[in-house]
């Protein structure tokens, strides 16, 4: 069983919602990223989505674009991102790690080399934003053979037929994009998200996590109520933006990750509400 599957099954059994923060590897430098990853776990993250810096992040809003630019200013590459995970794994073998990014760096490294390295350093899954299932068969096959999860997005514009096809290739969790737009936008329509998630439930037993636009405890609770987990990216990267490369200050790490701690509390609150109402 993949690590993500075991994490989500354990969480489901406990009635715990998955909390999945996103940060950019190397923002503002690799030392901070490592510290942030461990702090995110301390504040309640179950899985971490680690962004691979790419020069042309066409699906990301301005906050994550700037995070990527900071990482690239320090020269962080896909190879560095893999090394970062390897370092993280020296102390943490429980938390799920999903790499998220754009295809070109993986394409240039070569699928075979990438999957071997990802497997070796302890990565659990991959989400390539600009590679829909129709273009991913070769990479998907290699990931599958290495027992790594392939995570795909479903958007509000995804047709039912297409959503069904996506759930058939997706493993780990299904990432539901809550709005039309780029990361960090804030135009969620609760009712339409709720009805889309209901439709997806009919198609798949995969855990469904909601991302794009979740920025605080309230939106975390609202989206957590509808799903099996939530992804928080821009709201965290915005706080990381206050850090500078160089010496890592422990209290800065804690402060940057407080938005995740608050989301954890909000999600756990849902569980207590539910228990109280029973």
């Amino acid at each position, binding site marked *: 069983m993949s690590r993500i599957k075991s994490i989500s099954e354990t969480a489901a059994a406990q009635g715990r919602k998955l909390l999945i923060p996103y940060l950019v590897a190397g923002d503002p430098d690799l030392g901070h990223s490592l510290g942030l990853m461990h702090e995110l776990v301390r504040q309640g993250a179950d899985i971490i989505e680690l962004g691979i810096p790419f020069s*042309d992040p066409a699906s990301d809003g301005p906050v994550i674009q700037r995070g990527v630019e900071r990482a690239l200013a320090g020269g962080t590459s896909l190879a560095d991102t893999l090394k970062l995970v390897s370092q993280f794994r020296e102390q943490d073998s429980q938390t799920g790690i999903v790499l998220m990014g754009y295809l*070109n760096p993986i394409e240039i490294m070569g699928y075979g080399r990438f999957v071997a390295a990802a497997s070796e350093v302890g990565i659990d899954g991959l989400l390539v934003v600009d590679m829909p299932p129709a273009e991913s068969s070769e990479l998907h096959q290699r990931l599958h053979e290495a027992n790594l999860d392939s995570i795909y997005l479903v958007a509000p514009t995804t047709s039912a037929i297409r959503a069904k096809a996506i759930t058939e290739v997706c493993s780990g969790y299904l990432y539901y994009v809550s709005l039309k737009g780029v990361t960090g936008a804030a135009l969620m329509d609760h009712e339409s998200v709720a009805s889309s998630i209901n439709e997806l439930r009919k198609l798949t037993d995969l855990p469904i996590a909601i991302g794009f636009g979740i920025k605080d405890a309230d939106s975390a609770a609202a989206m957590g109520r509808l799903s099996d987990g939530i992804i928080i990216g821009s709201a965290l990267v915005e706080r990381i933006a206050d850090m500078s490369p160089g010496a890592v200050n422990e209290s800065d790490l804690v402060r940057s990750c407080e938005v995740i701690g608050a989301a954890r509390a909000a999600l756990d609150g849902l569980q207590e509400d539910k228990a109280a109402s029973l």
Partner: protein
Amino acid sequence: MSESMSEFGTGTTGFDGPDSTGHFGPYGGIFVGETLIAAVEELAQVYQELSNDDAFWAEYDSELKHYVGRPSPLYFAERLTAASGGAKIYLKREDLNHTGAHKVNNTIGQALLAKHMGKTRIIAETGAGQHGVASATVAARLGLECHVYMGAEDVVRQAPNVYRMKLLGANVVAVESGSRTLKDAMNEALRDWATNVDNTYYIIGTVAGPHPYPQLVRDFQCIIGRETKAQSLEMFGKLPDALVACVGGGSNAIGLFHPFLENKQVAMFGVEAGGKGLETGAHAAPLSAGKPGVLHGNRTYLMTDEGGQIQETHSVSAGLDYPGVGPEHAWLKDLQRVNYVAATDEEAMQAFHKLTRLEGIIPALETSHAIAFAMDLAASMGPDKNIVINLSGRGDKDIETVARIEGMKL
């Protein structure tokens, strides 16, 4: 004549692309975020229907004739030919189109698609500003809201075109992210499209992007090659021996080349921006010095570093300053049907002056790259041979740039 006319077919058996999934061999495809997939698929569906509809093409042809002023002439450049000393050089005068370049052939076609799809808002990316102007122009004509994304660097380099777009009623958005040039403008246009996908049509300006863009932009630009075929037979009784066009994204080149792909006797040369020289790394020549990768919705040759980051490009001409190229060009390179070469900034500048002084035609700096190469090519061929250069755009927009480089202030 009848034998020559039989070559005037449009069949493209050996070079028939893209396939049903939008691929030209290993290139092309659809590499975009999930939010945009439905929009791209809808466009492919609508285009497939309309492209089989004679009424759609009749409307397009009528627009080209009455609004753009087509057909554009094929012009024998007598003094340029004499100066080169060899093959006869003909110029396909796309610079005489309304808005001054080939770009309008495509924006007319796509604006008609937008109209058929009921979209009320148009977005476009632009480098030199020619595609932005051509988009703003058709938007004005059809009464559509228009937003043009342009790298902040290019907004400065191409100030007259920025003002032109504003006069036409477009909102010009200066893009400050990344390298602040064409590729970043395209990123920003993709972000806008994902956000406003319900009412927005994205007019991509070149034969790149996700399927069906490389196909439909090519189809709209093929008017250049079809006219050139007929005009060549009329003017010199046979097909040209060589075709030359500049290649940034590659829309003017594919428009000229594509109708001739099956005519094996016609040699083809795509001229990329060699910038300060291929050996310096400061250029925009992915076919000459790049490698395959994925950017902006398609797999193609790119300027990318070892780690897969897209590299900053350099060219004196903003319209060629792009790290990728249309996927069909990537395929034609691998098939060795088209030769891809490069001309440097300096060679382009010299050609700019030569054509201006010898023929009284001020060419765009993009086009000047093709002229530079074609003069050398002509010199290597006999006087009984004929070369057609796609004179893709006029150079009025570039006079400030040329003056600045030569130390003058206008």
